[in-house]
């Protein structure tokens, strides 16, 4: 054998051994691999989207968390709370330590709120009604609100508590005593008390987390030891990785066809219901959709059943469930399931006959967001449905950035646009106030440009009502009013569907009695089980 042939043989042997090595590594137990959107934001004060929420819920803790299997909240870092007018007082657990080893105290809670308000990004708008936070003693904290604001408790699920001492040691460049409030450092490091600590974070590649042995709740053995949350994987890549055991849970953003094909190949389908809807928004401030009868005609002509079939993965699992109104079924104020919307051409024609505009006089602009290809299918469905009652329409593809500018003016807002909206706290206020209150118009969320005094009054009443029963009644009334005004076509209740390998069990995403009513909370890693398959 020549030396060249020997070298080649050695190289092949080395390659073969590394292939075997990698195959073994891929099957190693206790490591959970997931994928999500292009970038994960580690700073909890800036967390907004699904990937950020997954990081936040696992690396940080909050005073209260959503109950499993039913609506409502339970204490987490808090032991108990009381409400006195516009003041909320929380008694904190005394056995909680941050991952740094520092004890968690009321000072940390006050600091976390002030930091979030000062940074002014992410979901900080949820706390604009908080006048002050005071550390009454090391384990008691009080929030004083500027006015009655009943969604405050639910909003606290979005106030992650950061380790003040650790952050103060890592202040970056900036003005004033607090400089940058630790923003530079917290974009790559964590200062939480959560069940998982951050090992490394590359916002374009992955965040690696590992179990926090000092967590104040015992983490089951079967929970993943290490988690790799990867960002921005292509659908084709994920499609290949799941059967090879190189990815365990996909994101919800895969096209239905890919989820379907993964399910066909033996992957389990996980789902997280509620929290939002596909809202097909009509510009109520511009002809012809300033006429309620025209809007009701479109809402009746829309084929809800076909829309849901378009996002069905299997006969039993779909990315959509029938909608009954502005509030998704299961949330406070939702209308009962038997009131689901139906495609009704007779009703559509009858409403159209009452509309002051003739269909021959206008052509509707149906927009869809360029970054969400799924919306093009709904635009085509609408075009077909509306043509059945003689309404002409043209489909317009709009990039998100342009859409957010278009909606700032009534004239440039498309006649019909589509947006998926989720309640970030699980409370209907975060869903509806920004969408329909007349002071909040001209944003991507309120492209209906609705201005209705009755709607405003009900939204304000629901915000200040502390009694849960009375609050629910107000939202039901508001919901019915919105259905009759039809500023929006409530296409379907959005359900997040994920494909997963059989190496992992996720009760919070597969068993309705263990579900959380908050998007992203189902990805609480300590509640997952690695099966070792």
């Amino acid at each position, binding site marked *: 054998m020549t030396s060249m042939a020997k070298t080649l043989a050695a190289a092949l042997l*080395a*390659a073969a*051994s*590394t*292939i075997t*090595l*990698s195959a073994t*590594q*891929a099957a*190693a137990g206790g*490591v959970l*691999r997931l994928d999500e959107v*292009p*970038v994960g*934001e580690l*700073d909890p004060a*800036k967390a*907004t*989207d699904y990937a950020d929420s997954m990081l936040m819920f696992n690396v940080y803790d909050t005073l209260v968390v959503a109950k499993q299997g039913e609506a409502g909240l339970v204490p987490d870092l808090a032991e108990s709370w009381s409400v006195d007018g516009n003041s909320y007082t929380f008694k904190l657990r005394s056995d909680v330590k941050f991952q740094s080893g520092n004890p968690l105290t009321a000072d940390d809670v006050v600091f976390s709120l002030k930091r979030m308000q000062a940074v*002014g*990004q*992410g*979901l*900080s*708008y949820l706390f*604009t009604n908080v006048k002050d936070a005071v550390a009454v003693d090391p384990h008691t904290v009080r929030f004083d609100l500027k006015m009655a604001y009943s969604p405050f408790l639910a909003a606290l699920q979005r106030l992650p508590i950061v380790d003040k001492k650790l952050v103060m040691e890592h202040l970056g460049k900036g003005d004033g005593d607090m400089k940058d409030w630790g*923003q*530079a450092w917290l*974009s*790559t490091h964590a200062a939480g008390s959560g069940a998982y600590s951050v090992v490394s974070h*590359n*916002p*374009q*590649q*992955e965040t*690696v987390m590992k179990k926090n042995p000092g967590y104040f709740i015992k983490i089951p053995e079967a929970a993943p030891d290490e988690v*790799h949350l*990867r960002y*921005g*994987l*292509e659908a*084709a*890549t994920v499609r*290949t*990785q799941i059967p*090879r055991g*190189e990815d365990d849970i996909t994101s919800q953003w895969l096209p239905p066809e890919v989820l379907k094909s993964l399910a066909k190949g033996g992957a389990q389908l996980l789902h997280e219901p509620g929290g939002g809807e596909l809202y097909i928004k009509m510009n109520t401030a511009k002809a012809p959709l300033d006429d309620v009868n025209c809007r009701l005609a479109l809402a009746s002509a829309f084929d809800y059943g076909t829309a849901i079939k378009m996002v069905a993965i299997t006969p039993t699992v779909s990315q959509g469930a029938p909608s009954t109104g502005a509030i998704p079924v299961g949330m406070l104020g939702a209308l009962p399931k038997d009131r689901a919307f139906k495609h009704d051409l007779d009703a559509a024609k009858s409403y159209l006959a009452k509309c002051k505009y003739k269909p021959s006089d206008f052509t509707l602009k149906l927009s869809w967001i360029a*970054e969400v290809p799924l919306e093009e299918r709904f635009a085509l469905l609408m075009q077909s449905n509306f043509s059945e009652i003689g309404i002409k329409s043209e489909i317009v593809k709009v*990039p*998100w*950035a*342009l859409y*957010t*500018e278009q909606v700032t003016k009534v004239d440039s807002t498309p006649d019909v646009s589509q947006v998926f909206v989720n309640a*970030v706290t699980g409370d209907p206020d975060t869903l509806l106030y*920004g969408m329909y209150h007349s002071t909040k118009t001209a*944003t*991507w*969320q309120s492209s209906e440009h609705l201005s209705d005094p009755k709607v405003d009054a009900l939204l304000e009443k629901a915000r200040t009502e502390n009694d849960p029963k009375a609050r629910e009644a107000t939202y039901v009334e508001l919901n019915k009013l919105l259905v009759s005004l039809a500023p929006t076509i409530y296409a379907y209740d959005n359900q997040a569907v994920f494909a997963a390998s059989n190496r992992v069990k996720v009760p919070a995403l597969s068993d309705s009695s263990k579900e959380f009513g908050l998007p992203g909370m189902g990805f609480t890693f300590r509640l997952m089980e690695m099966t070792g398959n």
Partner: protein
Amino acid sequence: MIVLIGVSMLIFAIARVIPGDPARIALGPNATAEQVADLREKLHLNAPVVVQYGIFLRDLFHGDLGQSLYTNRAVTTDIAQFLPATLELVFVSGFMMIVLGLPLGVLSARYRGRWIDTAIRLVSLLGVSAPSFVWAVIFMLLFAFYLPIFPIAGQISDTIKLPAVTGFVMIDALIAGNLAAFFDALRHIILPAFSLALAGIGQAARLTRSSMVETYEKPFIEMARSYGFMESRIASHFALRPSLIPSLTVIGLDFAALLANAFLVEQVFAWPGLSRYGVQVILRKDLNAIVGTVLVISAMFLIVNIVVDLLIAFINPRIRLSQRPA
């Protein structure tokens, strides 16, 4: 330097023409009007573009490219983290272009009109005509899905922990003396690098072939044959060297272009490089990051072109000697 300043002015202006408010996009859909207004003020977006450019230049001379709204980190930190991954991919692709493209061209010319020539020309044509991301998906299907030889995504298996010294994973593996990690990284880079290199390989092979075919017609080759030199010696010593100049020029340009073209391949193989970052920041209208990324890619383009010019001068004595003072 003049070119870079020109590029910075151009990209600074173009980035601001992309539709959408960078502050609104950065803060996400739930941000209030007040939050958006505050961030616009912080980013000097309300100031005239000329003033914004002045602030940019002032910061640039202090080594500060500003904050990225996409990653919420300093743009220089992002570039330092993502550039090595792209450079590693581009270097391996460039290496493949040279070690595969040139010999294939030589073989094709040497066996002109025979089946081997036809096969190489067909492969070259396929390489040139289909974009790299198409090859990326095909290779992924063939060699990672149906025939699981290569990994699908990333730079290295996630169970291997390597200290980041240079940011070049293969070099870091060697520095750490971890051969298993080196081979693992090598396996990860083969498919993306080959997908990216295929067009360049095809182009280099076709150009080398046509140049060599032309050179084979020259009288000095006939003379070499008449002296009784072996065909392999004629090919390597007499025909290849003059034929290399156009091929090297094109490889040089292709090599620089790989930096910008890598984004789709990086996307398909989840390669955490600068090109992928560049696309994401454009989609989010992250002004500082767009300008920073384009400046770095432009600088790399200029450097590669200078290196290629020097290399050609070294290979071709006529160019080298013509530049000497009389």
